[in-house]
Protein backbone atom coordinates (compact mmCIF):
# COMPACT_ATOMS: atom_id res chain seq x y z
CA UNK A 1 0.00 0.00 0.00
CA UNK A 2 1.20 3.48 -0.70
CA UNK A 3 -0.01 6.80 0.64
CA UNK A 4 0.42 9.46 -2.04
CA UNK A 5 0.44 13.24 -1.80
CA UNK A 6 -3.23 13.41 -2.74
CA UNK A 7 -4.13 11.21 0.24
CA UNK A 8 -1.95 13.34 2.52
CA UNK A 9 -3.83 16.45 1.36
CA UNK A 10 -7.12 14.68 2.03
CA UNK A 11 -6.10 13.58 5.55
CA UNK A 12 -4.70 17.02 6.27
CA UNK A 13 -8.06 18.55 5.37
CA UNK A 14 -9.98 16.02 7.50
CA UNK A 15 -7.73 16.63 10.49
CA UNK A 16 -7.73 20.42 10.04
CA UNK A 17 -3.95 20.65 9.96
CA UNK A 18 -2.53 22.70 7.10
CA UNK A 19 0.46 21.06 5.45
CA UNK A 20 2.70 22.64 2.82
CA UNK A 21 4.24 20.68 -0.09
CA UNK A 22 7.57 20.03 1.61
CA UNK A 23 5.98 18.69 4.80
CA UNK A 24 3.46 16.67 2.79
CA UNK A 25 6.32 14.76 1.15
CA UNK A 26 8.02 14.06 4.45
CA UNK A 27 4.69 12.95 5.97
CA UNK A 28 3.97 10.63 3.05
CA UNK A 29 7.34 8.93 3.62
CA UNK A 30 6.79 8.61 7.38
CA UNK A 31 3.23 7.34 7.04
CA UNK A 32 4.21 4.80 4.41
CA UNK A 33 6.90 3.31 6.64
CA UNK A 34 4.45 3.20 9.56
CA UNK A 35 1.73 1.55 7.45
CA UNK A 36 4.22 -1.00 6.10
CA UNK A 37 4.79 -1.93 9.71
CA UNK A 38 1.05 -2.03 10.47
CA UNK A 39 0.35 -4.30 7.47
CA UNK A 40 1.64 -7.19 9.58
CA UNK A 41 -1.86 -7.50 11.03
CA UNK A 42 -3.09 -8.91 7.72
CA UNK A 43 -1.21 -12.13 8.49
CA UNK A 44 -3.96 -12.91 11.00
CA UNK A 45 -7.40 -14.26 10.19
CA UNK A 46 -9.89 -12.45 12.41
CA UNK A 47 -13.26 -13.14 10.76
CA UNK A 48 -14.74 -14.78 13.84
CA UNK A 49 -13.10 -12.57 16.48
CA UNK A 50 -15.18 -10.11 18.47
CA UNK A 51 -13.56 -6.64 18.49
CA UNK A 52 -12.34 -5.47 21.89
CA UNK A 53 -13.71 -1.99 22.50
CA UNK A 54 -12.93 -1.69 26.21
CA UNK A 55 -10.89 -3.69 28.68
CA UNK A 56 -13.01 -2.39 31.56
CA UNK A 57 -15.67 -5.07 31.72
CA UNK A 58 -18.25 -3.06 33.60
CA UNK A 59 -21.56 -1.56 32.67
CA UNK A 60 -21.79 2.18 33.05
CA UNK A 61 -23.16 3.28 36.40
CA UNK A 62 -26.30 5.39 36.46
CA UNK A 63 -26.48 8.56 38.51
CA UNK A 64 -29.17 11.15 39.14
CA UNK A 65 -29.30 13.79 36.41
CA UNK A 66 -28.42 16.79 38.56
CA UNK A 67 -26.55 20.01 37.97
CA UNK A 68 -23.37 19.87 40.03
CA UNK A 69 -21.33 22.78 38.73
CA UNK A 70 -23.13 26.10 38.95
CA UNK A 71 -22.07 29.56 37.84
CA UNK A 72 -18.75 28.55 36.37
CA UNK A 73 -19.02 30.68 33.23
CA UNK A 74 -16.00 32.72 34.21
CA UNK A 75 -13.92 29.58 34.68
CA UNK A 76 -15.00 28.24 31.31
CA UNK A 77 -14.21 31.46 29.47
CA UNK A 78 -10.99 32.12 31.41
CA UNK A 79 -8.60 30.31 29.05
CA UNK A 80 -10.16 31.34 25.75
CA UNK A 81 -7.89 33.14 23.27
CA UNK A 82 -10.69 35.63 22.55
CA UNK A 83 -14.04 36.23 24.26
CA UNK A 84 -16.45 39.02 25.09
CA UNK A 85 -17.09 37.88 28.71
CA UNK A 86 -20.17 35.89 27.72
CA UNK A 87 -19.11 34.13 24.53
CA UNK A 88 -16.14 32.63 22.75
CA UNK A 89 -15.23 34.81 19.78
CA UNK A 90 -14.25 33.27 16.43
CA UNK A 91 -13.51 34.79 13.00
CA UNK A 92 -16.66 35.91 11.18
CA UNK A 93 -18.54 32.89 9.78
CA UNK A 94 -21.52 34.55 8.01
CA UNK A 95 -21.00 37.52 5.71
Amino acid sequence: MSIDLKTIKHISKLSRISVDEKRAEKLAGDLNSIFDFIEKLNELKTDNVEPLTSVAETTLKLRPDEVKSKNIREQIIKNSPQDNEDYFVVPKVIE
Partner: protein
Amino acid sequence: MSDITKQSLTELVENIKNKKLSSTDVTKAFIERSEKSKELNAYITEDFTSALDKAKKFDQKPNLDLKLPGIPMAVKDLFCTNNVKTTAGSKILNNFVPTYESTVTENIWKEGAILLGKLNCDEFAMGSSNETSFFGNVQNPIDKDLVPGGSSGGSASAVAGQLTPITIGTDTGGSIRQPASFTGTVGLKPTYGSCSRYGIVAFASSLDQAGPMAQNVKDCALLQEVISTYDPKDSTSIDFKRNQYSKELTNNIKGKKIGIPKEYRVDGMPKEIEDLWQKGIQYVKDCGAETIDISLPHTSYALPTYYIVAPAEASSNLARYDGVKYGFRAEGENLIDMYEKTRSEGFGAEVQRRIMIGTYVLSSGYYDAYYLKAQKVRKLIKNDFDEAYKKVDAILTPSTPSSAFKIGEKTNDPVSMYLNDIFTVPVNLAGLPGISIPAGHDSKGYPLGLQIIGKAFDEQNILNIAFAMEEKINFKNKITDWWIK
Protein backbone atom coordinates in the same frame (compact mmCIF):
# COMPACT_ATOMS: atom_id res chain seq x y z
CA MET B 1 20.17 17.00 58.60
CA SER B 2 22.23 16.71 55.44
CA ASP B 3 21.46 14.54 52.46
CA ILE B 4 17.72 15.02 52.74
CA THR B 5 17.29 14.53 49.02
CA LYS B 6 19.03 11.15 49.18
CA GLN B 7 16.30 9.77 51.44
CA SER B 8 13.50 7.61 50.12
CA LEU B 9 9.89 8.71 50.41
CA THR B 10 9.33 6.16 53.19
CA GLU B 11 12.28 7.58 55.17
CA LEU B 12 11.13 11.16 54.69
CA VAL B 13 7.60 10.33 55.85
CA GLU B 14 9.04 8.63 58.93
CA ASN B 15 11.37 11.53 59.71
CA ILE B 16 8.56 14.06 59.39
CA LYS B 17 6.27 11.93 61.57
CA ASN B 18 9.02 11.60 64.22
CA LYS B 19 9.61 15.35 63.97
CA LYS B 20 13.25 14.84 63.01
CA LEU B 21 12.52 16.86 59.91
CA SER B 22 9.95 19.52 59.12
CA SER B 23 8.12 19.85 55.84
CA THR B 24 9.99 23.15 55.38
CA ASP B 25 13.39 21.41 55.74
CA VAL B 26 12.44 18.79 53.19
CA THR B 27 10.79 21.18 50.75
CA LYS B 28 13.76 23.58 50.92
CA ALA B 29 16.20 20.74 50.23
CA PHE B 30 14.38 19.57 47.11
CA ILE B 31 13.94 23.15 45.85
CA GLU B 32 17.66 23.82 46.31
CA ARG B 33 18.62 20.69 44.45
CA SER B 34 16.09 21.40 41.70
CA GLU B 35 17.55 24.93 41.35
CA LYS B 36 21.01 23.43 40.86
CA SER B 37 19.68 20.93 38.32
CA LYS B 38 18.32 23.19 35.59
CA GLU B 39 20.53 21.46 33.03
CA LEU B 40 18.39 18.33 33.31
CA ASN B 41 15.43 20.40 32.03
CA ALA B 42 13.14 18.18 34.07
CA TYR B 43 10.70 20.97 34.97
CA ILE B 44 8.38 22.83 32.64
CA THR B 45 6.85 24.92 35.43
CA GLU B 46 8.36 25.49 38.86
CA ASP B 47 6.04 26.32 41.74
CA PHE B 48 8.74 26.72 44.41
CA THR B 49 7.57 29.90 46.18
CA SER B 50 4.12 28.54 46.67
CA ALA B 51 5.52 25.15 47.72
CA LEU B 52 7.59 26.76 50.47
CA ASP B 53 4.57 28.73 51.71
CA LYS B 54 2.53 25.54 51.86
CA ALA B 55 5.32 23.74 53.72
CA LYS B 56 5.54 26.51 56.33
CA LYS B 57 1.78 26.43 56.71
CA PHE B 58 1.88 22.66 57.12
CA ASP B 59 4.54 22.95 59.86
CA GLN B 60 2.45 25.43 61.85
CA LYS B 61 -0.22 22.81 62.32
CA PRO B 62 1.15 19.50 61.09
CA ASN B 63 -1.31 16.67 60.54
CA LEU B 64 0.98 13.68 61.01
CA ASP B 65 -1.74 11.10 60.45
CA LEU B 66 -1.66 11.74 56.71
CA LYS B 67 0.10 9.33 54.36
CA LEU B 68 2.27 12.00 52.70
CA PRO B 69 2.64 14.57 55.52
CA GLY B 70 4.18 17.73 54.08
CA ILE B 71 6.04 15.81 51.36
CA PRO B 72 7.00 18.00 48.38
CA MET B 73 6.38 16.40 45.01
CA ALA B 74 6.63 17.40 41.35
CA VAL B 75 4.23 15.75 38.88
CA LYS B 76 4.10 15.12 35.13
CA ASP B 77 2.72 18.10 33.24
CA LEU B 78 -0.15 16.02 31.92
CA PHE B 79 -2.15 16.33 35.15
CA CYS B 80 -4.38 19.38 35.39
CA THR B 81 -3.49 21.40 38.48
CA ASN B 82 -5.81 24.16 39.61
CA ASN B 83 -4.26 27.59 38.94
CA VAL B 84 -0.92 26.10 37.87
CA LYS B 85 -0.12 26.07 34.15
CA THR B 86 -0.57 22.66 32.52
CA THR B 87 0.96 22.25 29.05
CA ALA B 88 1.13 18.52 28.20
CA GLY B 89 4.52 19.43 26.73
CA SER B 90 2.79 21.27 23.88
CA LYS B 91 2.88 24.75 22.43
CA ILE B 92 -0.87 24.52 21.93
CA LEU B 93 -1.40 24.48 25.73
CA ASN B 94 1.49 26.79 26.61
CA ASN B 95 -0.89 29.36 28.12
CA PHE B 96 -3.41 26.95 29.66
CA VAL B 97 -4.11 27.42 33.38
CA PRO B 98 -6.68 24.86 34.55
CA THR B 99 -9.53 25.93 36.78
CA TYR B 100 -9.85 22.45 38.25
CA GLU B 101 -7.71 19.64 39.66
CA SER B 102 -7.21 16.10 38.37
CA THR B 103 -8.54 13.42 40.73
CA VAL B 104 -5.16 11.73 41.05
CA THR B 105 -3.36 14.93 42.11
CA GLU B 106 -6.30 15.88 44.35
CA ASN B 107 -5.83 12.54 46.15
CA ILE B 108 -2.14 13.32 46.64
CA TRP B 109 -2.71 16.81 48.11
CA LYS B 110 -5.44 15.44 50.39
CA GLU B 111 -2.83 13.17 51.97
CA GLY B 112 -0.64 16.16 52.76
CA ALA B 113 1.74 16.36 49.79
CA ILE B 114 2.82 19.71 48.33
CA LEU B 115 3.22 20.54 44.63
CA LEU B 116 6.81 21.45 43.68
CA GLY B 117 6.15 21.91 39.98
CA LYS B 118 5.22 20.34 36.67
CA LEU B 119 7.57 17.94 34.92
CA ASN B 120 8.57 17.76 31.29
CA CYS B 121 7.15 15.07 29.01
CA ASP B 122 6.76 14.19 25.36
CA GLU B 123 4.10 16.32 23.68
CA PHE B 124 0.70 14.87 24.64
CA ALA B 125 2.66 11.86 25.97
CA MET B 126 3.48 10.82 22.39
CA GLY B 127 7.08 9.70 22.43
CA SER B 128 9.60 7.36 23.99
CA SER B 129 12.52 9.73 24.59
CA ASN B 130 11.06 13.07 25.75
CA GLU B 131 12.38 14.58 22.50
CA THR B 132 8.94 15.60 21.21
CA SER B 133 8.37 18.10 24.04
CA PHE B 134 7.91 21.72 22.97
CA PHE B 135 9.99 22.59 26.03
CA GLY B 136 13.12 20.77 24.92
CA ASN B 137 14.96 17.56 25.64
CA VAL B 138 15.35 16.21 29.15
CA GLN B 139 18.73 14.91 30.27
CA ASN B 140 19.02 11.51 31.91
CA PRO B 141 20.89 11.87 35.25
CA ILE B 142 22.73 8.65 34.37
CA ASP B 143 24.84 10.31 31.64
CA LYS B 144 25.03 13.52 29.64
CA ASP B 145 23.10 13.66 26.35
CA LEU B 146 21.33 10.41 27.16
CA VAL B 147 17.52 10.35 26.82
CA PRO B 148 15.58 9.62 30.02
CA GLY B 149 12.97 7.68 28.02
CA GLY B 150 9.43 8.84 27.59
CA SER B 151 6.88 10.00 27.63
CA SER B 152 7.27 10.51 31.40
CA GLY B 153 10.91 11.55 30.86
CA GLY B 154 10.92 14.59 33.14
CA SER B 155 9.33 12.50 35.88
CA ALA B 156 11.94 9.73 35.54
CA SER B 157 14.81 12.22 35.41
CA ALA B 158 13.50 14.09 38.47
CA VAL B 159 13.17 10.93 40.59
CA ALA B 160 16.53 9.46 39.51
CA GLY B 161 18.23 12.86 39.95
CA GLN B 162 16.55 13.32 43.36
CA LEU B 163 14.78 16.55 42.42
CA THR B 164 11.58 15.09 43.88
CA PRO B 165 11.27 12.17 46.33
CA ILE B 166 8.62 10.51 44.17
CA THR B 167 6.35 11.42 41.27
CA ILE B 168 3.45 10.37 39.08
CA GLY B 169 3.53 9.70 35.37
CA THR B 170 1.08 8.34 32.85
CA ASP B 171 1.45 5.22 30.73
CA THR B 172 -0.38 4.63 27.44
CA GLY B 173 2.09 2.21 25.83
CA GLY B 174 5.02 2.16 28.25
CA SER B 175 5.43 5.82 29.25
CA ILE B 176 6.03 5.01 32.93
CA ARG B 177 7.88 1.68 32.67
CA GLN B 178 10.27 2.50 29.82
CA PRO B 179 11.64 5.74 31.39
CA ALA B 180 11.82 3.98 34.77
CA SER B 181 13.93 1.30 33.11
CA PHE B 182 16.17 3.93 31.41
CA THR B 183 16.84 5.79 34.67
CA GLY B 184 17.20 2.96 37.21
CA THR B 185 13.93 3.73 38.97
CA VAL B 186 10.70 1.87 39.74
CA GLY B 187 7.54 2.56 37.72
CA LEU B 188 4.08 1.03 38.03
CA LYS B 189 1.37 1.10 35.39
CA PRO B 190 -1.81 0.12 37.26
CA THR B 191 -4.75 -1.88 35.90
CA TYR B 192 -6.93 0.12 33.51
CA GLY B 193 -9.66 1.63 35.71
CA SER B 194 -7.56 1.67 38.90
CA CYS B 195 -6.63 5.37 38.82
CA SER B 196 -9.06 8.02 37.63
CA ARG B 197 -8.37 9.66 34.28
CA TYR B 198 -10.37 12.75 35.28
CA GLY B 199 -8.26 15.86 34.69
CA ILE B 200 -5.47 14.07 32.83
CA VAL B 201 -4.86 15.49 29.35
CA ALA B 202 -6.22 12.67 27.18
CA PHE B 203 -4.07 10.82 24.65
CA ALA B 204 -5.68 7.39 23.99
CA SER B 205 -8.57 6.97 26.38
CA SER B 206 -8.83 3.17 26.29
CA LEU B 207 -5.14 2.83 27.21
CA ASP B 208 -4.16 5.82 29.41
CA GLN B 209 -3.39 5.15 33.09
CA ALA B 210 -1.65 7.22 35.76
CA GLY B 211 0.86 5.55 38.04
CA PRO B 212 3.67 6.10 40.56
CA MET B 213 7.38 6.43 39.73
CA ALA B 214 9.73 5.96 42.66
CA GLN B 215 13.20 5.10 43.93
CA ASN B 216 12.05 1.81 45.40
CA VAL B 217 9.11 -0.60 45.47
CA LYS B 218 7.84 0.38 48.93
CA ASP B 219 7.59 4.07 47.98
CA CYS B 220 5.81 3.03 44.80
CA ALA B 221 3.29 0.95 46.79
CA LEU B 222 2.62 3.85 49.14
CA LEU B 223 1.84 6.28 46.33
CA GLN B 224 -0.31 3.71 44.52
CA GLU B 225 -2.33 3.37 47.73
CA VAL B 226 -2.98 7.14 47.63
CA ILE B 227 -3.76 7.63 43.95
CA SER B 228 -5.93 4.59 43.26
CA THR B 229 -9.56 5.46 44.09
CA TYR B 230 -12.93 4.89 42.51
CA ASP B 231 -14.06 8.09 40.82
CA PRO B 232 -17.57 8.68 39.43
CA LYS B 233 -16.10 11.48 37.29
CA ASP B 234 -14.32 8.88 35.13
CA SER B 235 -16.84 6.52 33.50
CA THR B 236 -14.18 3.81 33.16
CA SER B 237 -13.03 4.04 36.78
CA ILE B 238 -13.67 0.68 38.42
CA ASP B 239 -15.15 0.18 41.87
CA PHE B 240 -13.10 -2.74 43.22
CA LYS B 241 -11.65 -3.43 46.65
CA ARG B 242 -8.28 -1.73 46.76
CA ASN B 243 -5.50 -3.00 48.99
CA GLN B 244 -3.42 -1.02 51.46
CA TYR B 245 -0.55 -1.67 49.08
CA SER B 246 2.33 -0.47 51.28
CA LYS B 247 1.01 -1.98 54.51
CA GLU B 248 0.29 -5.33 52.87
CA LEU B 249 3.63 -5.41 51.06
CA THR B 250 5.53 -8.67 51.69
CA ASN B 251 8.61 -10.33 50.25
CA ASN B 252 7.07 -13.75 50.77
CA ILE B 253 6.35 -15.00 47.27
CA LYS B 254 6.90 -18.70 48.01
CA GLY B 255 4.94 -20.95 45.68
CA LYS B 256 3.97 -18.17 43.26
CA LYS B 257 3.92 -19.31 39.66
CA ILE B 258 5.71 -16.94 37.31
CA GLY B 259 5.35 -17.22 33.56
CA ILE B 260 8.25 -16.70 31.14
CA PRO B 261 6.84 -15.91 27.68
CA LYS B 262 9.02 -17.22 24.86
CA GLU B 263 7.77 -14.58 22.40
CA TYR B 264 9.57 -11.86 24.36
CA ARG B 265 12.87 -13.29 23.12
CA VAL B 266 12.88 -11.01 20.07
CA ASP B 267 15.31 -10.93 17.13
CA GLY B 268 18.22 -8.60 17.64
CA MET B 269 17.76 -8.29 21.38
CA PRO B 270 21.16 -7.65 22.98
CA LYS B 271 22.66 -10.53 24.92
CA GLU B 272 22.84 -8.29 27.98
CA ILE B 273 19.05 -8.14 28.09
CA GLU B 274 18.73 -11.91 27.74
CA ASP B 275 21.31 -12.40 30.53
CA LEU B 276 19.45 -9.96 32.76
CA TRP B 277 16.21 -11.84 32.16
CA GLN B 278 17.90 -15.14 33.10
CA LYS B 279 19.23 -13.51 36.27
CA GLY B 280 15.70 -12.34 37.05
CA ILE B 281 14.41 -15.88 36.62
CA GLN B 282 17.06 -17.10 39.06
CA TYR B 283 16.12 -14.37 41.58
CA VAL B 284 12.43 -15.31 41.66
CA LYS B 285 13.41 -18.97 42.04
CA ASP B 286 15.71 -18.03 44.93
CA CYS B 287 12.68 -16.36 46.53
CA GLY B 288 10.81 -19.65 46.42
CA ALA B 289 8.68 -18.96 43.36
CA GLU B 290 8.31 -21.36 40.49
CA THR B 291 8.84 -20.34 36.84
CA ILE B 292 6.82 -21.81 34.00
CA ASP B 293 7.45 -21.40 30.26
CA ILE B 294 4.39 -19.89 28.65
CA SER B 295 3.36 -18.63 25.22
CA LEU B 296 1.73 -15.32 24.34
CA PRO B 297 1.44 -16.07 20.61
CA HIS B 298 0.19 -12.68 19.42
CA THR B 299 2.94 -10.61 21.06
CA SER B 300 4.49 -9.48 17.76
CA TYR B 301 1.14 -8.03 16.67
CA ALA B 302 0.85 -5.75 19.69
CA LEU B 303 2.85 -2.80 18.33
CA PRO B 304 1.07 -2.65 14.94
CA THR B 305 -2.26 -2.88 16.82
CA TYR B 306 -1.19 -0.11 19.17
CA TYR B 307 -0.19 2.14 16.26
CA ILE B 308 -3.75 1.96 14.97
CA VAL B 309 -5.72 2.11 18.23
CA ALA B 310 -3.70 4.85 19.97
CA PRO B 311 -3.51 7.32 17.03
CA ALA B 312 -7.21 6.72 16.25
CA GLU B 313 -8.20 7.66 19.79
CA ALA B 314 -5.70 10.53 19.81
CA SER B 315 -7.05 12.02 16.59
CA SER B 316 -10.47 12.09 18.20
CA ASN B 317 -9.28 13.39 21.60
CA LEU B 318 -7.10 16.11 20.09
CA ALA B 319 -9.93 17.46 17.93
CA ARG B 320 -10.72 19.72 20.90
CA TYR B 321 -7.64 21.89 20.25
CA ASP B 322 -9.24 24.29 17.82
CA GLY B 323 -8.02 27.68 19.05
CA VAL B 324 -11.47 28.61 20.34
CA LYS B 325 -12.05 27.44 23.90
CA TYR B 326 -8.51 27.45 25.30
CA GLY B 327 -4.92 27.26 24.24
CA PHE B 328 -2.94 28.75 21.40
CA ARG B 329 -4.67 30.43 18.45
CA ALA B 330 -3.09 31.42 15.13
CA GLU B 331 -4.85 34.13 13.13
CA GLY B 332 -6.57 33.00 9.94
CA GLU B 333 -8.52 34.49 7.07
CA ASN B 334 -11.66 32.67 8.14
CA LEU B 335 -12.76 30.09 10.71
CA ILE B 336 -11.44 27.02 8.84
CA ASP B 337 -8.18 28.74 8.02
CA MET B 338 -7.83 29.67 11.71
CA TYR B 339 -8.38 26.02 12.76
CA GLU B 340 -5.87 24.71 10.23
CA LYS B 341 -3.16 27.24 11.08
CA THR B 342 -3.70 26.89 14.83
CA ARG B 343 -3.26 23.12 14.69
CA SER B 344 -0.39 23.25 12.20
CA GLU B 345 1.57 25.78 14.30
CA GLY B 346 0.42 24.53 17.71
CA PHE B 347 1.17 20.80 17.40
CA GLY B 348 4.66 19.39 16.90
CA ALA B 349 5.68 16.94 14.16
CA GLU B 350 5.08 13.67 16.05
CA VAL B 351 1.63 14.75 17.26
CA GLN B 352 0.63 15.79 13.75
CA ARG B 353 1.90 12.48 12.41
CA ARG B 354 -0.22 10.54 14.88
CA ILE B 355 -3.33 12.64 14.34
CA MET B 356 -2.98 11.97 10.63
CA ILE B 357 -2.51 8.21 11.09
CA GLY B 358 -5.56 8.20 13.34
CA THR B 359 -7.64 10.29 10.95
CA TYR B 360 -6.70 7.98 8.08
CA VAL B 361 -7.53 4.70 9.85
CA LEU B 362 -10.90 6.08 10.95
CA SER B 363 -11.74 7.64 7.60
CA SER B 364 -14.46 6.37 5.31
CA GLY B 365 -13.45 3.19 3.49
CA TYR B 366 -10.55 2.34 5.82
CA TYR B 367 -12.28 1.85 9.17
CA ASP B 368 -12.86 -1.92 8.79
CA ALA B 369 -9.45 -2.60 7.29
CA TYR B 370 -7.57 -0.84 10.06
CA TYR B 371 -9.45 0.18 13.19
CA LEU B 372 -11.85 -2.77 13.38
CA LYS B 373 -9.04 -5.16 12.47
CA ALA B 374 -6.88 -3.72 15.27
CA GLN B 375 -9.70 -4.08 17.80
CA LYS B 376 -10.03 -7.74 16.85
CA VAL B 377 -6.31 -8.37 17.20
CA ARG B 378 -6.46 -6.55 20.52
CA LYS B 379 -8.97 -9.16 21.62
CA LEU B 380 -6.55 -11.95 20.59
CA ILE B 381 -3.76 -10.30 22.59
CA LYS B 382 -5.98 -10.09 25.65
CA ASN B 383 -7.04 -13.73 25.16
CA ASP B 384 -3.35 -14.73 25.20
CA PHE B 385 -2.99 -13.24 28.68
CA ASP B 386 -6.28 -14.72 29.93
CA GLU B 387 -5.08 -18.13 28.79
CA ALA B 388 -1.65 -17.69 30.42
CA TYR B 389 -3.18 -16.60 33.73
CA LYS B 390 -4.95 -19.95 34.02
CA LYS B 391 -1.48 -21.37 34.68
CA VAL B 392 0.52 -18.55 36.28
CA ASP B 393 0.12 -15.74 38.84
CA ALA B 394 2.36 -13.21 37.08
CA ILE B 395 4.68 -12.87 34.09
CA LEU B 396 8.34 -11.81 34.06
CA THR B 397 9.89 -10.06 31.02
CA PRO B 398 12.54 -7.47 30.22
CA SER B 399 11.11 -3.90 30.36
CA THR B 400 12.77 -2.67 27.17
CA PRO B 401 14.76 -4.21 24.30
CA SER B 402 17.75 -1.91 25.00
CA SER B 403 19.18 0.52 27.53
CA ALA B 404 18.84 4.32 27.15
CA PHE B 405 20.11 5.79 23.87
CA LYS B 406 21.67 9.12 22.98
CA ILE B 407 19.60 12.24 22.26
CA GLY B 408 18.98 12.45 18.51
CA GLU B 409 19.87 8.82 17.84
CA LYS B 410 16.38 7.69 16.82
CA THR B 411 14.49 10.87 15.97
CA ASN B 412 14.61 10.39 12.20
CA ASP B 413 13.03 6.96 12.15
CA PRO B 414 9.60 6.79 13.81
CA VAL B 415 9.34 3.00 13.56
CA SER B 416 12.69 2.36 15.31
CA MET B 417 11.51 4.73 18.07
CA TYR B 418 8.22 2.85 18.38
CA LEU B 419 10.10 -0.46 18.89
CA ASN B 420 11.16 0.80 22.34
CA ASP B 421 7.72 -0.12 23.61
CA ILE B 422 7.62 -3.66 22.27
CA PHE B 423 7.49 -5.26 25.76
CA THR B 424 5.26 -2.68 27.42
CA VAL B 425 2.52 -2.09 24.83
CA PRO B 426 0.82 -5.53 25.14
CA VAL B 427 0.13 -4.77 28.82
CA ASN B 428 -1.79 -1.58 27.97
CA LEU B 429 -3.74 -3.29 25.20
CA ALA B 430 -4.88 -5.95 27.69
CA GLY B 431 -5.52 -3.38 30.46
CA LEU B 432 -3.22 -5.18 32.93
CA PRO B 433 -0.91 -3.85 35.66
CA GLY B 434 2.84 -3.91 35.02
CA ILE B 435 5.82 -2.76 37.04
CA SER B 436 9.39 -2.09 35.93
CA ILE B 437 12.19 -2.47 38.47
CA PRO B 438 15.88 -1.76 37.97
CA ALA B 439 17.70 -5.07 37.74
CA GLY B 440 21.23 -4.43 36.49
CA HIS B 441 23.55 -2.43 34.24
CA ASP B 442 24.75 -2.93 30.70
CA SER B 443 28.41 -2.73 29.62
CA LYS B 444 28.14 1.08 29.40
CA GLY B 445 26.95 1.22 32.99
CA TYR B 446 23.40 2.21 31.98
CA PRO B 447 20.51 0.72 33.97
CA LEU B 448 18.31 -2.09 32.66
CA GLY B 449 14.87 -3.02 33.95
CA LEU B 450 12.73 -6.10 34.35
CA GLN B 451 8.95 -6.01 34.05
CA ILE B 452 6.46 -7.99 36.10
CA ILE B 453 2.99 -8.18 34.57
CA GLY B 454 0.02 -9.09 36.76
CA LYS B 455 -3.58 -10.13 36.47
CA ALA B 456 -6.11 -7.30 36.37
CA PHE B 457 -6.47 -5.67 39.83
CA ASP B 458 -3.59 -7.77 41.19
CA GLU B 459 -1.23 -4.85 41.87
CA GLN B 460 -0.47 -6.22 45.34
CA ASN B 461 0.92 -9.42 43.88
CA ILE B 462 3.27 -7.77 41.38
CA LEU B 463 4.38 -5.25 44.01
CA ASN B 464 5.21 -8.17 46.32
CA ILE B 465 7.18 -9.97 43.61
CA ALA B 466 8.99 -6.72 42.79
CA PHE B 467 9.70 -6.17 46.51
CA ALA B 468 11.15 -9.66 46.90
CA MET B 469 13.27 -9.32 43.75
CA GLU B 470 14.48 -5.85 44.76
CA GLU B 471 15.97 -7.31 47.92
CA LYS B 472 17.86 -9.97 45.96
CA ILE B 473 19.00 -7.65 43.16
CA ASN B 474 20.25 -4.94 45.53
CA PHE B 475 20.51 -2.45 42.65
CA LYS B 476 22.52 0.74 43.14
CA ASN B 477 21.95 3.59 40.72
CA LYS B 478 25.19 5.17 39.50
CA ILE B 479 24.46 8.89 39.69
CA THR B 480 27.51 11.18 39.66
CA ASP B 481 25.68 14.54 39.77
CA TRP B 482 27.55 15.42 36.55
CA TRP B 483 25.12 18.28 35.85
CA ILE B 484 25.80 20.10 39.12
CA LYS B 485 28.61 22.62 38.64
